[in-house]
């Protein structure tokens, strides 16, 4: 949508001369026509998104159909509670997004700004929890198939006993946090309070990531400390049982899976030096589930990040007071995208975390 950005006029309230509306591109007859065109455009974009993800859903369906036993074992490594928490965070962000759209529709730019900030914070909380989940898996050697090597317990930790992977994942958010906070201070000191307000918002947005990380780490420490023996019994025991059955029942498939190229000597080694019944008897083929898991959740996370950028854009425009009863399209369009990302997670959650 071609929008003539005329910042000098944003403060005043036009009364309703549609054809001369501030953000009505000249090739549109009316605000309604512009809105409808944009809306059709975003729906078509969402169609391409659905089809884009559908490739991964086909991959999932195929592999689950071929190797249901792998999925049965693998989902025990995913924490239902963290997944459920993330689902609710995302649903809540959808609620605040819908409220932001409503505020834009009624011309309440201030409310819209607040709701959008909450939406962005929820998005970064989601990413923070995801970072904890990912890094915890990487510590256990739960990687995609080609790198999968499960081993319990032995992982070196960095500062505060945090996973090294988590620290690496947090480098970019930390840089963003410092950058946004510093730039907000700079803008404030140079008397650009308006700009400063935006960068303060961005700082709060990035803080959401750290809130998610802290929440996730506290939860995992609670699980690990308070019920270590119990957890081991609950999750590991059926897991090992399943793992054993996989080794026997699907040996043929297993070999087939491993046979593509380099894997062979490596696999033999795995099976040879692992004492029966030990924790390490998880076959590497379980990594196939995690290849799919990382593709699906990773692509979803990329969409979340893209959504945050789009949200930041309309957040800035709400601060500038751009929305009116006859001009709220961008908020609506970003909202639709955001809900779609939520929709995809609604399916990913039971498909990946809740396999029975």
């Amino acid at each position, binding site marked *: 949508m071609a929008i003539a950005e005329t910042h000098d006029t944003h403060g005043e309230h036009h009364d*309703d001369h*549609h054809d001369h509306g501030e953000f009505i591109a000249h090739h549109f*007859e*009316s*605000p*309604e*026509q512009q809105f*409808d065109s944009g*809306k*059709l455009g975003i*729906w*078509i974009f*969402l*169609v391409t998104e*659905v*089809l884009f993800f*559908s*490739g991964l*859903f*086909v991959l999932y*369906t*195929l592999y689950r*159909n*071929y190797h249901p036993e792998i999925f049965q074992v693998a989902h025990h490594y995913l924490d*239902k509670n963290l997944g*459920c928490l993330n*689902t*609710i965070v995302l*649903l*809540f962000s*959808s*609620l605040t997004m*819908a*409220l932001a*759209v*409503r505020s834009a*529709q*009624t011309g309440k730019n201030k409310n819209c700004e607040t709701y959008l900030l909450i939406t962005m914070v929820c998005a970064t909380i989601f990413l923070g929890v995801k970072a904890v989940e990912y890094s915890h898996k990487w510590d256990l050697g739960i990687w995609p198939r080609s790198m999968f090597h499960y081993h319990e317990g032995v992982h070196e930790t960095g500062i505060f006993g945090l996973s090294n992977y988590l620290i690496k994942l947090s480098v970019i958010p930390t840089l963003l946090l410092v950058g946004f906070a510093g730039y907000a201070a700079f803008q404030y000191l140079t008397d650009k309070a308006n700009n400063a307000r935006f960068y303060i918002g961005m700082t709060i947005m990035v803080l959401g990531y750290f809130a998610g990380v802290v929440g996730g780490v506290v939860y995992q420490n609670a699980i690990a400390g308070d019920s270590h023996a119990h957890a081991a019994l609950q999750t590991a025991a059926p897991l090992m049982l399943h793992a054993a059955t996989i080794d026997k029942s699907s040996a*043929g498939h297993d*070999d*087939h899976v491993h*046979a*593509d*190229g380099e894997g062979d000597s490596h696999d033999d080694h795995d099976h040879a030096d692992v004492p029966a019944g030990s924790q390490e008897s998880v076959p590497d083929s379980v990594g196939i589930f995690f290849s799919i898991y990382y593709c699906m959740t990773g692509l979803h996370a990329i969409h979340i990040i893209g959504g945050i950028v789009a949200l930041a854009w309309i957040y800035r425009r709400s601060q500038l007071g751009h929305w009116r*009863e*006859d001009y*709220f399209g961008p908020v*609506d369009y970003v*909202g639709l995208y955001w*809900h*779609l990302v*939520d*929709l995809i997670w*609604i*399916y990913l*959650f*039971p*498909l990946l975390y*809740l396999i*029975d």
Partner: protein
Amino acid sequence: MADHSHDSHDHPSFNHPAPIPMLFGVFIALVGLTVATVVTSNIELAQFAFPVAMAIATLKAFLVGAFFMHMWWDKGFNILVFLSSLLFVTLFIGMTMLDTGSNLEQVESFPTTETSSLSTTEY
């Protein structure tokens, strides 16, 4: 479209703000269904587990689509465009699944043929 484009009172005709109680109601329903799907995943449902989980997810998707995404009030054409994508996803998955059993023989005979370096090209 509509050249009589509303003499803009507070709400132009294309502007339908959703009622706030409805939005909160939908959110509560979604959280309830999320909890329900976690609870049902802990119960032994055997072969029904997957359909139940998918049914709940679809109900949630309906709530998000109809109310958060305003599809309930949207133009029929937009809904048609979006729902058509679901049709094609169904075709995509359905057609692929029809084919899955058809090369099982080759898959099963794979370990015996793997010594030949040529056989890997089939995959």
